[in-house]
């Protein structure tokens, strides 16, 4: 079974700076109405680049059996 990984930003902490959106190689992140980052789980491959970039450290990489 292939494992599904994806990034999950914490909208309570997110400062919506857009640093994650800029580094995402899959263009899977958008800033919802300037409030917080939202990840498109269809596009996200869970590479974790955004999590490493986020200055507020609010992105968690989730993992689940597909």
């Amino acid at each position, binding site marked *: 079974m292939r494992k599904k990984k994806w990034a999950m930003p914490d909208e309570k902490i997110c*400062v919506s700076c857009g640093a994650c959106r800029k580094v995402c190689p899959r263009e899977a992140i958008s*800033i*919802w109405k300037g*409030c917080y980052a939202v990840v498109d789980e269809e596009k996200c491959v869970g590479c974790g680049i955004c999590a490493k970039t986020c200055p507020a450290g609010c992105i968690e990489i989730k993992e689940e059996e597909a």
Partner: protein
Amino acid sequence: MKKKHWYDYLWIWEIIYFTLGFFNILFAWLGMIEFLLPLLIAIIGGNKAFCNNFCGRSQLLTKLGTTCKCSRNKPTPKFLYSKAFRYGFLVFFMTMFANMVFQTYLVASGAGTLKETIKLFWTFRVPWGWAYTAGTVSDWVAQFSFGLYSMMLTATLIGLIVMVLFKPRTWCTFCPMGSMTQGICKLKAR
């Protein structure tokens, strides 16, 4: 590779801004663009396109921190992105901005005199007289230039310090403009 846009080069603008202000302080007024544009985008558009795409300071921090590897890339301490610190810093920054406008008013009304200095970190006075020839414009216009340039330079210096210590864009977590525009967007999105 992702497509590069014209606005991905705005970090150059940030360098040009500080260079211009070094030679002629009156260019500091251009900083009002960086002050009003994010607010207008947030109020009218209800988004953070400024922070996300156009902010020269954040691009410069990314360039130096990520591309030039000048950042330790360590996690930002929690309190720096806590709501209390973010809004506290916003209030502090706006108070200092209001004080700067008040100083300009004092000079305009004749109650104060023009000081040809830059104030770093709201504390240290640095002589900056070479960037201005007295009498070129009304004293208050020059006073505001010195004040705004001080604010912009202080913000960038703090940004650079936290960039070196933590993540390249740690400044963005408590940037007053960022907090303010996010606040506006949250109010609009309700």
